[in-house]
């Protein structure tokens, strides 16, 4: 009987170990996108609804009336796709539709497109009120990371 229990425990531990390994592997593979802002931006955290409005270009000023400049990567870049789905809870094509409507009906302006995350960090650091996002490590204090509050 004890032998069966021992076998059962071994199987349980091995299974748990496998699960933990898989879980760790998966979680370590889930990319994390950080929302970055220019140090002039006072807000330290932001709601998911608000960040949706900012990247949909519906909200174009911070609460202290400072103008918001939005920087984005192209649709093809993984960082943009992860940002849309994981942070905004939207699909990249939805943002495209919104921006197209703004640009081609005259209603508003689309975000400024940048080529790389490095350029994103540089542009956000240089423009007061700017906001963007990166997946790469952030070194230095040229930009602030802003926390996105989930519902």
């Amino acid at each position, binding site marked *: 009987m004890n032998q069966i229990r021992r076998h059962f425990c071994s199987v349980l531990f091995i299974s748990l170990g496998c699960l933990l390994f898989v879980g760790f592997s998966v979680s370590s593979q889930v990319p994390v996108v950080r929302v970055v802002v220019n140090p002039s931006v006072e807000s330290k955290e932001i709601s998911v609804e*608000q960040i949706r409005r900012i990247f949909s270009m519906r*909200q174009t000023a911070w609460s202290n009336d400072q*103008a918001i400049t939005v920087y984005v990567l192209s649709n093809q870049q993984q960082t943009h796709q992860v940002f849309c789905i994981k942070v905004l809870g939207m*699909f990249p094509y939805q943002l495209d539709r919104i921006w197209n409507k703004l*640009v081609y009906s005259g209603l508003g302006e689309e975000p400024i497109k940048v080529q790389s995350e490095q350029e994103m960090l540089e542009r956000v650091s240089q423009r007061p009120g700017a906001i963007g996002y990166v997946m790469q490590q952030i070194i230095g204090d040229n930009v602030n990371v802003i926390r996105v509050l989930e519902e």
Partner: protein
Amino acid sequence: MKLTTRAICLGLGLIGQSYSLDAEPLKINGFIAQGIVQAQDSNFVTDDGDVSVKLTEIGVNSAYRINPSFRMAGQAVYLEGGNRYPDGFRIDYLFLEWQLLNRPNWKIKTQIGRNKNYHWLYSSTRDVPHTRPSIVLPQSLYFDVFRDVALGVDGLVFIAQTNNKLGEWDVNLSYGNSRITEEQKKNLLGSNSSGKLKHDFDIQFSLYLRPNLTNFQFGFSLLDADFSYQRGDNDTLFTGDETSQRIMFNLLYQGQRWEIASEVMKERVIAENILFPGFYSDVTAEGGYLQARYFLSNQLTMLARLDIYDRDRQDRDGKNIETLSQDLVPGYFGLMDQATVGVTWKFAKNIQIQAEYHRVKGTGRLAPIFTPDTVINNSKYWNMWAIQLMYWF
């Protein structure tokens, strides 16, 4: 001087002034698209129903922010669509925007000049090929014969955006009119009309709600427009008036793989004296479409749509049209139902090709409207296909 011309002068002046101030850079975007199309057994594109290259759309737009409160935006387009709408250059929109309030939870602005129609799902970018789900939009609502009038107004637009616990809200209000060209008039009234058709005024209101953190959008809009006709020399028509009142509801769902869109409308059309002195017609049309798009990949999108339109909800099969015209006009001029399938392939950055096929029953949305062309449009069922290559920047 026409309001549009005045707005253009104002715009050029402001842009020039802004250049001299060397503020923000001028933004320029545009699109170019060319296709081939065939609408057999109807005059939808050409009278002979042959394959045609009358499917050209070119546009350039620009926007300039003068300061945080004022902004200019304009778009010029060149269009060729055969019988669908008049060919040539035109100012699509050109207005001065005044931001009245810009807070995190509220945005209110007004636009004066030539404004787009912001009230329907696809009306504001109707001429921009890559923003449309299909080359030819559902004719129940996006009636090409009436395109230039429905496209926008010379006048004033008021736009408010806010958000609360329920979601994001958009309120749009527009007031103004549109110039009706000679070709547009003939599309509506027939080639024998020599008088002047005027769009007296047009007022539209729309409300949109996107519930928080969902993929749904709901909207409704109201339209009231008045037209007057002044009889010309040797005219077959008479001085009269026409009023259109429309109510529309729309729904949009945007999922990862699926996008579902639907718009339905009810439109009351009152016509007085135009066909003959004492003529009076008051009918209510109904129509709408249900459209599904499936994203096979980031590059490939499939489309299926069913669109229906009845000119008179109390005469859906057009029997009254046959009776009143003493069988000169077939009943199928009172309806137009359309089944569409299509595919869009975005094969390079900012370049895509769109192809579609339409099977159509009825001729109720074919030009001219007041005096139907029963000679060319003598088929109850007809087909259309189109392929268009488009590039945008």
